[in-house]
């Protein structure tokens, strides 16, 4: 597997599925990149767990206000039409189904939609944050991820082996090789890199890739 998408390219692809005016929560870290690739003419409204709707880019260095941060504790700015609220209202938005999409990272995703992204096991200090709330709240829960681990093992699996974040919650995956929906307890392949064969992609995936229509080419700009 020589060719794969960069993180920026995965983020770009995920951004293309976000409608104008959508309310979006991006997980800490890699998912935050999605905000940079909104298609021209579309503007999503970003939600952060700690009580801002409508935050914008990071301020220039030295101009941070540490009372205006996102869930990753990075300084942000406000877009016009922003609002502040407390944590219970913030998670009312999440749990109450008001977010259009949450885009999260993953350690493992299973074909039944189970997600593991908060704990790599009993070692170390466990930390969960808002991930368990987000996976059961947003209307659509998408994952962006490398297709395989650094060791080349599948991250898309039949059943998760790591502690779960949520049960049956993920509906779409944007990986470094493909776009895959989860439907009826199965991975359904929607798009793949033109340079990778279906067989190779299957061999890098821990559960069967179903087809229920044409598989589009996953074409992403240089970034």
């Amino acid at each position, binding site marked *: 597997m020589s060719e794969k998408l960069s993180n920026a390219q995965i983020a770009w692809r995920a951004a293309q599925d976000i409608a*104008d*005016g959508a*309310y979006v929560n991006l997980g800490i870290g890699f998912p935050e990149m999605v905000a940079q690739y909104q298609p021209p003419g579309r*503007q999503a*409204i970003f*939600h952060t767990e700690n009580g*801002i*709707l*409508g935050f914008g880019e990071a301020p220039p260095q030295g101009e941070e206000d540490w009372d205006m941060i996102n869930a990753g504790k990075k300084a942000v700015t*406000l877009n*016009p*039409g*922003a*609002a*502040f*609220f407390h944590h*219970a*209202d913030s*998670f*009312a*938005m*999440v*749990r*109450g*189904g*008001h*977010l259009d999409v949450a885009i999260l990272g993953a350690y493992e995703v299973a074909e039944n939609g189970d997600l593991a992204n908060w704990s790599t096991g009993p070692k170390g200090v466990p930390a969960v944050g808002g991930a368990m709330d987000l996976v*059961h*709240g947003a209307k659509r829960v998408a994952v962006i991820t490398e297709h395989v681990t650094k060791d080349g093992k599948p991250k898309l699996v039949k059943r998760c082996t790591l502690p779960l974040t949520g049960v049956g919650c993920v509906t779409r995956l944007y990986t470094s090789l493909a776009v895959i929906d989860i439907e009826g307890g199965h991975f359904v392949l929607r798009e793949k890199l033109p340079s990778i064969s279906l067989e190779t992609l299957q061999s890098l995936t821990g559960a069967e890739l179903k087809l229920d229509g044409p598989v589009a080419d996953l074409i992403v700009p240089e970034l």
Partner: protein
Amino acid sequence: MDKTRATLAEAVADIPDGASVMIGGFGGSGAPIELIHALIDRFAATGSPKNLTLINNNAGNGHVGLAALIEQGMVRKLICSFPRSADPRVFTQKYQAGEIELELVPQGTLAERIRAGGAGIPAFYTPTGFGTLLAEGKAIETFEGRSYVRERWLKADVALIKADVADPYGNLTYRMAARNFNPLMAMAAATTIVQARRIVAAGEIDPETVITPGIFVQYVVEVANPAQEEVLNRAGARYPEGEVA
């Protein structure tokens, strides 16, 4: 992104027969009279929407607003805490004639059920109503030796909301105690329709003072000089105007 709509008629055009409709306000304070009257106009012209389930703290007063909606025969069921007012005749007559169903809910439980609906909490426990008729048939649980009633969330297809200032994103402020149920209902409905006294540009509402963030709002219509139920009733108003039911 622009949630503003030009007319009240446009804003209420899609509410179907049989819909559950939360209506903000406590008595006349915070009651979206013009949105309600637009719904009555639509019913007069098209026969829809009818068989509505309304959720409000009260049951209307006089012959305008909520009372007029009931008087027109558009309402199948009312969920409220206090179906009394200075002039509750419209509801009382329908109720005593068996033409409208009533679900009586303690006021705090009503508020909390609506908030739960908006917050994704399907059920919660409250001490309110334990040992009373209003807890009959409900699950009871004991925590730390005290008994509590389990209550379910309350959601609706539509909420009709009266705000003070709005922006195109649907961010809202309210006027004094007209806030009451409005922010909760905005959270708990699939489609939240707002009449605002003033619509300003995005960014003109201080983000610190937003009471309802726009995520809870679908449509906003400006009604610059909203009628107040108490004032209409003192003038003996009826809606539709001049009609004697």
